[in-house]
């Protein structure tokens, strides 16, 4: 069913947080999304009825737990059109990317020593590569952004070369909302023989993702940004690459054979899942993806784009506002902005007094803030399909009021 303002309002009823915090205007969905009751219950149900360690016990309870855990992996795989054995459960996108930064060097060709990322990366897709470059004497390059907040593809082409070992790019910027053409980026990077990685932390909740169509080598995302629990994340990796990669963590559950001297690794994904995993949270994540699928990402995309269009129109009414967004269709439903002469933390502090939750500050993208010349950071309002036009009206009215206070 298509989403309109009435249905969005109705959808809020699926989320207990709004019942417990009456009047909450939650516009920080890019930081973490709220959880529907079905997700909360899936985690609770598993803990109450099916909890056992997985891959170890032979008793019925353990088999049931294993079955649910495997089922969760199948649901996640299906959501991004991957194979179940290509899905590794991690803690979050950050851990997924760190896993790659630590294990990839052993399979990189010697003549390749450059890593290419962009100026709009979140710290989670920047610091691991910066540190890898330091450890292994590699060169980290940044693709520039244009004045209209898009990725500069001319700059990308000029920085991509035969020396490029890794290309790792956010599908969606957590500050600008910009949707990058990761399909094209992957295609160009592959022509140069680079490993291709997509940071999908900000896209998984907004866009249909098909890893077979994107043809990327790896893709990472977090559960808590896609209506799921925190503490669970995903790394997708192409099967043949996961087979070549060495393990990241060592311990129980990831070996096939072990003696005092040596170990042989289990097949992927177990090879990368040492120790007991966040089983209940994996099951919660699967439920959140099933919930999203029921609403359909197509419907979500349509409504969220309408919200973005409305938000941009209304925010432009506010005097002395600087908006950092490429515009509808080019962005997911989030808008970063600044009010001239007022610190973002003060804006967020004053909005909080009206029960409006937004993000303010550097948004874990400090190099980008420097490029945007936003010394104190930005304010970011990020929407989900359960947000309504009234949420945006409340925000805009409050911003106008704040400006009056400071005048």
């Amino acid at each position, binding site marked *: 069913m298509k989403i309109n303002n009435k249905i969005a309002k109705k959808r809020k009823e699926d989320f207990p947080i709004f019942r417990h915090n009456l009047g909450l205007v939650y516009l920080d969905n890019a930081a973490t999304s709220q959880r529907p009751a079905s997700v909360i219950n899936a985690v609770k149900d598993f803990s109450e009825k099916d909890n056992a360690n997985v891959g170890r016990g032979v008793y019925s309870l353990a088999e049931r737990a294993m079955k649910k855990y495997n089922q969760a992996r199948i649901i996640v795989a299906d959501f991004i059109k991957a194979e179940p054995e290509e899905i590794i459960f991690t803690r979050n996108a950050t851990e997924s990317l760190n896993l790659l930064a630590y294990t990839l060097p052993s399979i990189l060709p010697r003549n390749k020593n450059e890593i290419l990322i962009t100026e709009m990366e979140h710290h989670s897709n920047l610091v691991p590569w910066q540190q890898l470059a330091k450890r292994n004497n590699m060169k980290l390059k940044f693709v520039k952004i244009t004045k209209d907040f898009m990725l500069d593809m001319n700059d990308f082409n000029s920085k991509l070369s035969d020396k490029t070992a890794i290309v790792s790019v956010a599908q969606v910027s957590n500050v600008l909302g910009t949707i990058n053409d990761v399909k094209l980026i992957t295609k160009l990077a592959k022509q140069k023989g680079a490993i291709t990685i997509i940071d999908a932390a900000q896209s998984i909740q907004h866009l249909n993702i098909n890893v077979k169509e994107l043809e990327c080598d790896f893709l990472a995302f977090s559960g808590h940004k896609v209506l799921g629990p925190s503490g669970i994340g995903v790394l997708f990796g192409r099967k043949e690459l996961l087979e070549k990669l060495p393990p990241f963590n060592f311990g129980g559950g990831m070996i096939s054979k072990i003696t005092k001297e040596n170990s042989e690794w289990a097949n992927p994904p177990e090879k990368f899942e040492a120790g007991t995993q966040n089983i209940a949270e994996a099951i919660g994540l699967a439920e959140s993806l099933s919930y999203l699928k029921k609403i359909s990402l197509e419907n979500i995309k349509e409504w969220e784009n309408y919200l973005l269009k409305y938000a941009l129109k209304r925010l432009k009414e506010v005097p002395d506002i600087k908006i950092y967004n490429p515009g509808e269709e080019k962005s997911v439903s989030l808008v970063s902005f600044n009010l001239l002469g007022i*610190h973002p933390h003060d804006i967020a502090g004053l909005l*909080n007094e009206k029960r409006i939750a937004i993000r303010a500050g550097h948004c874990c993208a400090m190099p980008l803030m420097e490029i945007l010349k936003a010394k104190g950071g930005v304010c970011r309002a990020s929407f989900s399909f359960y947000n309504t036009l009234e949420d945006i009206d409340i925000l805009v009215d409050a911003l106008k009021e704040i400006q009056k*206070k400071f005048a």
Partner: protein
Amino acid sequence: MEQGIPETLYSKHILELYKNPSNFGMLKNPTHSRTEYNSICGDEITVQLEVKNGIAKDVKFSGSGCVLSLVSASLLTSKIKGMKTEAIKKMNKDDIKELFKTKINNSRIKCVLLPLEAVKKALK
């Protein structure tokens, strides 16, 4: 009231002090000076002191930041003017909180402590 919604941090008095700060500017003959940054929020506060016979005869500050860090600088510089430097060095978080007379959330405590940090480092 729901949990977590504070009474206003931005009272008329605070906003007035933000718009018309006390002791804002530069000293002609500072004996001590220090600039401190809070890189997380881009705040930058410079404090200058003119110390004579162990007493802060004059104090001024300059810089940019959020309401809380700048108001804290106004309140602090007014408070320490005429105080013994030894007493200033002993000031802590609670003294700053007291100057504000409203509850400061944990998330903003760094903002209000920045000027004190600059003063203490200047006197070191």
